[in-house]
C-alpha cells in the first residue's frame, strides 16, 4: 500500500458495494455509482501528505471495516421526542442509522408545489429533475469521501422549492445513529434546489446515541437560483466514538444568499468541508461556525469560497474552544478570480485554548487575482484573558464560574447571531450544560 493510496480496505468496499447494488434498483444512476466507486477505489482515503488533509489523519476511518447494513432502524417515540425540537414548528425528516423513518417524519401540511422527501423516493420517480442536479454541485474528484458517498446514494433529503415560494416552516433533518450489529457507515445525501426568489431554512442535525461507533459520510448539495435565500444550520452532535465527514457544496446564482451556521460539538474525528461558488453577480455567502472539543476529539473545518463574478460577498466567522487533549483545524480559503472585481471578502477565526494540551492549526488563506477588492482575514489563538478573570474574581465570582462565563461569552459571539430562537436556545443549553456552574451562567444569558 502506498502512502498516497491508503485504501487498504478496497476489497471491503468493493464487496460492500456489490451487496449494496443488490438492494437498489438498476436505474439511470447506476452508472454514476459505479464510476464514483471506481474513482474512490483508485484514489483511496486521503493521506495526510495531501495539503488539504495535512493535519487530519483519517486512518482510523480507513482501518475499520464499516458495514453498510443497518440492523437497527427503529426508535421509540419517547426516545425521539427527547431529541426533537419541541418548541419549533417544522417539517421534519428522521433517519435512523441512515434509513428514512416515515413513521417519525412529519411532513404534513406541506404545500403541493414544494418537494421535501427521502432521496430514495426521489431517485425512483424524479429522474428528470435529479438528473440535472444530483452530483452536479459536489465534485467526486475533490474528495474521495464524496465519491464514496455518491456510490452509495440512497437515503437522504431531496428538497425542491419552486420559484417565488417561501417554505413556511424550517425543515429539520434528524440523522440519528445508534448501536448497530456491526459498526455502520452511512452516506446521507442531501440535495436542495432553490428556485428564483425562493426562501427556506434547513437544519441538519447529526446525533449519536449509545456512544455508538459508526461513520457518517454526508454530502449536501445546494443550488441557489437568482435572489433565492437558504439559511442553513448544521448541528453536529455525533457520539464520542463516531467519525463524521461532511461535505457541503453550494452553487449560487445572482443576488442569492446562503447563510450557514456550522456547529460542531461531538464526534471523535470530524471533518467539515464547505465549498461555496459565487457564480453570479450579487451573490453573498455568510459562513459562521463554532467548534467545541474536549478529550481526544479532532475537529477539522475546511471552507473554500470562490468569488467567480464581480460584486460578490463573503463573510466568515469561526470560533473554536479547545479543551483536554483535543485538536482543532481551521482552514478558510477565499479565491478571488480575475474577473471578480469589486468583491468583498472578510474572514476571521478565533480560538480559545482551555488546556495546555489542546492544539489548533489555523490558516486563513486569501488568493486574489483581481485588483479592485476589499478583503480582510485574521486568526487568533489565545487563552482566557487574565485581566478579565481577575476582575470577575474580585467581584466575588469563583474561579471556575469566571472561566465558564468568559468561555461562554466567547462562544456567544457565534450563537447570538442565530436568528432561529429555538436553535439558539438549544445550543445555549447544550453548550452551557458542558460548562461548570451551568445554572448561574444560564442566568447571564437570559437577556
Amino acid at each position, binding site marked *: 500500500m502506498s502512502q498516497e493510496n491508503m485504501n487498504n480496505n478496497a476489497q471491503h468496499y468493493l464487496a460492500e458495494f456489490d451487496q449494496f447494488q443488490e438492494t437498489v434498483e438498476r436505474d439511470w444512476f447506476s452508472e454514476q455509482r459505479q464510476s464514483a466507486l471506481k474513482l474512490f477505489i483508485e484514489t483511496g482515503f486521503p493521506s495526510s501528505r495531501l495539503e488539504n488533509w495535512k493535519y487530519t489523519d483519517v486512518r482510523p476511518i480507513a482501518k475499520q471495516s464499516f458495514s453498510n447494513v443497518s440492523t437497527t432502524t427503529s426508535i421509540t417515540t419517547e426516545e425521539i421526542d427527547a431529541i426533537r425540537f419541541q418548541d419549533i414548528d417544522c417539517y421534519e425528516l428522521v433517519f435512523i442509522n441512515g434509513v428514512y423513518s416515515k413513521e417519525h417524519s412529519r411532513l404534513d401540511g406541506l404545500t403541493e408545489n414544494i418537494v421535501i422527501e427521502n432521496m430514495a423516493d426521489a431517485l425512483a420517480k424524479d429522474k428528470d429533475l435529479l438528473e440535472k442536479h444530483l452530483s452536479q454541485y459536489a465534485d467526486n474528484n475533490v474528495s474521495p469521501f464524496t465519491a464514496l458517498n455518491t456510490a452509495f446514494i440512497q437515503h437522504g433529503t431531496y428538497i425542491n422549492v419552486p420559484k417565488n415560494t417561501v417554505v413556511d416552516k424550517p425543515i429539520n433533518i434528524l440523522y440519528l445513529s445508534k448501536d448497530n450489529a456491526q459498526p455502520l457507515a452511512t452516506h446521507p445525501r442531501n440535495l436542495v434546489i432553490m428556485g428564483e426568489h425562493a426562501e427556506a431554512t434547513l437544519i441538519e442535525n447529526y446525533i449519536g446515541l449509545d456512544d455508538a461507533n459508526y461513520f457518517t459520510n454526508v454530502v449536501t448539495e445546494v443550488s441557489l437560483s437568482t435572489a433565492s435565500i437558504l439559511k442553513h444550520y448544521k448541528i453536529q452532535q455525533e457520539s464520542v466514538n463516531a467519525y463524521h465527514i461532511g461535505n457541503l457544496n453550494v452553487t449560487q446564482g445572482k443576488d442569492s444568499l446562503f447563510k450557514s451556521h456550522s456547529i460542531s460539538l461531538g464526534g471523535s474525528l470530524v471533518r467539515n468541508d464547505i465549498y461555496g461558488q459565487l457564480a453570479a453577480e450579487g451573490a453573498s455567502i455568510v459562513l459562521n461556525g463554532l467548534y467545541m472539543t474536549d478529550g481526544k476529539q479532532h475537529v477539522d473545518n475546511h471552507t473554500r469560497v470562490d468569488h467567480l463574478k464581480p460584486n460578490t460577498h463573503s463573510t466568515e466567522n469561526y470560533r473554536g474552544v479547545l479543551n483536554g487533549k483535543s485538536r482543532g483545524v481551521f482552514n478558510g480559503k477565499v479565491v478571488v478570480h480575475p474577473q471578480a472585481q469589486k468583491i468583498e471578502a472578510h474572514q476571521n477565526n478565533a480560538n480559545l485554548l482551555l488546556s495546555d494540551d489542546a492544539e489548533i492549526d489555523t490558516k486563513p488563506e486569501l488568493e486574489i487575482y483581481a485588483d479592485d477588492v476589499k478583503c480582510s482575514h485574521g486568526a487568533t489563538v489565545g487563552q482566557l484573558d487574565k*485581566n*478579565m478573570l*481577575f*476582575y*470577575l*474574581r*474580585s*467581584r*466575588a*465570582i*469563583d*474561579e471556575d*464560574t*469566571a472561566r465558564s*462565563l*468568559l468561555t*461562554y*461569552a*466567547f462562544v*456567544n*459571539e457565534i450563537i447570538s447571531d442565530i436568528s432561529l430562537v429555538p436553535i439558539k436556545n438549544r445550543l445555549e443549553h447544550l453548550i452551557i450544560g458542558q460548562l461548570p456552574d451551568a445554572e*448561574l451562567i444560564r*442566568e*447571564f444569558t*437570559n*437577556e
Partner: protein
Amino acid sequence: MLEIQNLHTKIGDKEILKGLNLSIKAGEVHAIMGPNGSGKSTLANVLAGRDGYEVTQGSVEYEGKDLLELAPEERAWAGIFLAFQYPVEIPGVNNVYLLKAAVNAIRKNRGEQELDAVEFLALIKDKMKLVKMKDDLLSRSVNEDFSGGEKKRNEIFQMAVLEPKLAILDETDSGLDIDALKIVSEGVNSLRNEERSIILVTHYQRLLDYIKPDYVHVLSGGKIIKSGGPELALELEEKGYDWIVKDDKGENEAA
C-alpha cells in the same frame, strides 16, 4: 481591620513594595498619594489578590486573618472591594447579571439567603439613584464601550451594591468630570460608616475636599514615607512631592 507590616513584593525580578507599613481601623478613610510608579496600584492589587505579585517579606492581616492566603473571590466574600484604576471590559458578560451573581456569591458564602430577582432589583434601584447610574449601562456588557467616566461610575455603583467592609478606590477620581466627581464622592460619603474602611488612592487634593480622609499617606519608592492628617494633602498640592522624597532620601542616607 487591616494591618500591613513590612510588605515587600516583587513582579518578576523587580521589587516594587519595599517595606510598606499601614494600619487601618474600622470606619477610617485613608488617602494614599504619591508619584506615578511609586506602587499605589501594586498595593491595591496585592490587597485584592491579583496574581503575578510575589510577596517576599512581611504580612497582611485582615480582620485578624492572613489575607495573603485567600483567593481573590474569597477576599471579595470577606468584604474587600477594589475599584480598578482601569476597569476591565468584558464583552458578552452582562453588567447587571454579574452584579447579581456577585451579590449572591457573597451572601451565599456568608450563609445568608440569596436574593431573588425582585429583591435584587429593589436593591439596585436604590443604589442606581445614589450614583445617578444610567439604565442602559446596566443592561450592557461589563464596561464594554463605556466612556472613561462611565467605567469609574460603574465601579462605585458596584461598590454601593456590594457594600464592602474594606473598599480600595484606585484613582476613581481620574477621568471624572466635575459633576461626576461630586456625585461619586457623595455616593462614597453616604457609604461611610463606623464599620466600613476606605483606602482612597488619588493624585488630587480636589477629591479630598469632597471625601474628607482621616489620614493622608505618601507612598514613594514602595514605602509610606510620610503620614499626616488632611492638611498633608493641601501641603502636597502646594509643594509637590520633591520636598518629602528628598527628605526621605536624606533620612535613608543618614540611617
